[in-house]
C-alpha cells in the first residue's frame, strides 16, 4: 500500500494497520475517523467530501516528511476518503509504527491533527430531512 492515499473507495482500517507492520516496530498506533450521527444536536445522514486532489496528495507527502523528521518512525500510512459517505463510514485512517509507543502516539496525533488543518478538503453535511450545509472549517494552515 502506498504510504499516502486519497480514495473514493471504502477504507479498511485493518489493511491500513497491516501496512505499517514491521519487525523493527514495538508500538503501533492506528487512528480511525468515522462519520458521526450527531452534529450540534442535528441528525446527520452523511457527509460529502470534496478534495483538491493533487494538492492534498502533495500535502500528505509533506506531512509524512515532517513526521519522519520529528519522530523515529518505522512506517506510516495515511488514507483519506472523499465523495459521499454515510454515518459510520471511515473517512480517514492513520497508522504509525515506531520502536516505542510514546513516539507512535505523538506522531499519529500530529499526523491526524495536521491532516485536519492543512489538507485542501471540504465537507458538506447532509441532514435527515434533506438539508445540506458546508462544515464551517478553518483557514488552511501551512
Amino acid at each position, binding site marked *: 500500500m502506498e504510504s499516502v492515499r486519497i480514495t473514493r473507495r471504502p477504507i479498511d482500517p485493518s489493511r491500513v494497520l497491516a501496512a505499517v507492520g514491521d519487525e523493527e516496530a514495538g508500538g503501533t498506533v492506528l487512528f480511525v475517523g468515522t462519520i458521526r450521527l450527531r452534529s450540534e444536536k442535528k441528525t446527520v445522514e452523511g457527509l460529502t467530501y*470534496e478534495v483538491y486532489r493533487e494538492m492534498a496528495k502533495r500535502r500528505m507527502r509533506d506531512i509524512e516528511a515532517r513526521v519522519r523528521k520529528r519522530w523515529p518512525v518505522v512506517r506510516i500510512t495515511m488514507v483519506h476518503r472523499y465523495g459521499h459517505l454515510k454515518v459510520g463510514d471511515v473517512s480517514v485512517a492513520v497508522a504509525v509504527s515506531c520502536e516505542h509507543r510514546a513516539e507512535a502516539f505523538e506522531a499519529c496525533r500530529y499526523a491526524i491533527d495536521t491532516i485536519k488543518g492543512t489538507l485542501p478538503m471540504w465537507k458538506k453535511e447532509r441532514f435527515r430531512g434533506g438539508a445540506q450545509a458546508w462544515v464551517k472549517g478553518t483557514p488552511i494552515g501551512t
Partner: protein
Amino acid sequence: MIVKVLYFASAQGLTNLKSESMRLKEGSSVKEMAAEMLRLHPDLKSIEPTVRYSVNFEIADSNSTLRDGDEVAVLPPVAGG
C-alpha cells in the same frame, strides 16, 4: 497572460464553476487576480475575506506574482478528517 482558476466547495457553489481560464495583465499578483475574480463573480464577495489561494499547489500570499499557465485555486476554510 492566462491562468487557470479552480473553485472549491462554497466558492464552486457561488460561481457555478469548477474552473475557468482567466485573462490577466502580465505580471499580475494574486491580489489582482482576486480583484478580477470578484469583478467576474460578485457573489464571491461574501466569502472572499475567509478564502486563501494556492498557486501551483502551494499556499501563496497576496503579493505573489503570477505567471502564464499558473494554476490558482480558491480555497475556502478547510474541514478534512
